[in-house]
């Protein structure tokens, strides 16, 4: 145990930079997934066919094992190859389903009496979307962002396998060298990141919930 502690202290600069690299992967992928998933979710609220298609496709990405998804992307020109870019594309695709699904569910599952009176009072569909559905569905939408963030922090450790860097680098190296300290230098910060993200986003979600 003392061995681990002195290892962590000794390598704190490297661990810190790997943690920041890890967060960078997660934040860029999450930003992209939100920018795609939330507008797409809004678009499909009242379009059943498009919704089935979008959820189906996002579901396929989620079903593919993460390492296999990285593998599939590598040979693809422009987005593929070894490195960060491929990892970010894969993480974005992975995060898409929870965000898309929760955006849709949040916007769709509004008290029918509220929607009926909104329509009856002469609100346009755009006004209903932005002034009624969106504020009332925000907590559910955010629950999707929370799930997606935690998944992405986890899957991003695997991104090290395709040379994207991040905390996974320590874990893979630790496994290869049978060095527990090295392994935990990646695993502990990754776990802490996930727990922290879960806690903070959970608090935000509760504050935004409208009863």
């Amino acid at each position: 145990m003392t061995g681990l502690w002195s290892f962590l202290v000794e390598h704190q600069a490297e661990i810190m930079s790997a943690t920041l690299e890890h967060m960078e992967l997660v934040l860029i992928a999450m930003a992209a997934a939100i920018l795609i998933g939330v507008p797409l979710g809004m678009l499909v609220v009242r379009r059943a066919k498009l919704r089935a298609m979008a959820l189906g496709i996002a579901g396929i990405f989620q079903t593919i094992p993460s390492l296999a998804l990285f593998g599939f992307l590598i040979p693809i020109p422009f987005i593929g190859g070894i490195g960060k870019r491929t990892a970010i594309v894969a993480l974005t695709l992975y995060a898409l389903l929870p965000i898309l699904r929760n955006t849709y569910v949040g916007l769709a599952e509004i008290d029918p009496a509220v929607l009926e009176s909104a329509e009856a009072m002469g609100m346009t569909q755009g006004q209903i979307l932005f002034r009624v559905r969106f504020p009332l569905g925000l907590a559910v939408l955010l629950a999707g962002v929370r799930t997606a963030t935690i998944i992405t922090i986890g899957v991003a450790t695997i991104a090290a396998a395709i040379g994207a860097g991040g905390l996974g680098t320590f874990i893979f190296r630790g496994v290869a060298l049978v060095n527990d300290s090295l392994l935990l230098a990646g695993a502990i910060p990754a776990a802490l990141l996930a727990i922290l993200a879960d806690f903070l986003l959970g608090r935000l979600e509760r504050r935004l919930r409208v009863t």
Partner: protein
Amino acid sequence: MSSVKPPMSTAGQNLIEFRGVSWRANGSPEAAIIDDVSLEMPRGETLVLLGRSGSGKTTLLKLINGLYWPSKGEVIVEGRATREWDAIRLRRGIGYVIQEAGLFPHFTVAENVGLVPGLENWPREKIAARVKEMLRLVGLDPEEFSGRRPRELSGGQRQRVGVARALAADPPILLMDEPFGALDPVTRAELQREFKTLAARLGKTIVFVTHDLREALLLASRVILLQKGRVVASARPEEFLRVQHPEVQAFTAALDLGGDCA
């Protein structure tokens, strides 16, 4: 102030008119929900649509503000068929109150009441003044209630706010779908009495849906009884109980039973 009636238009006495209206759910092969209904709803009257569940009374209401469109025939509102109206314009000129009020839970009471004036781009001060006036009208102290959220209100208070919201933009027509249906009997009786006074004062054309004969007789200037999407009786409340029709007798019998038990 809000009781000033617009001058008689060439459209005549009737603010709302149904001309041979049928309605069935989109492409549904089943029997029509509304079956060849013709009705005249004169200005300033309170029409109560009475009927069992599934008799089509709510559908009839939604045909007036363009939530539904007739499959056959025409609904005329203020001299124009609803199909020719811009739906948004039509609805903003018609107040709408439903059971449980359908208030926006993320809006304060003041924001709920000021919604339609806001959509109509009234200046801020005018909206604020109107909201106060409306809350007083329905017996709620603006100081106390403006800042509250719907969840901080009792059922009766929510329904009052619902009425205030429906009246805020001063629409000539008010549609009410079992507005007092979810209230306890005491609160319901209270709101019914107050509403009757209010209706007399405002001179709006009110279409009121209920399955409660007692409520219908209390509030209506005319009771219209629906059965399976058809109008089977239409009479002033004092004549209604004498109408010779099995459905009228069914409702009367239910009332008698209720009276005996009480």
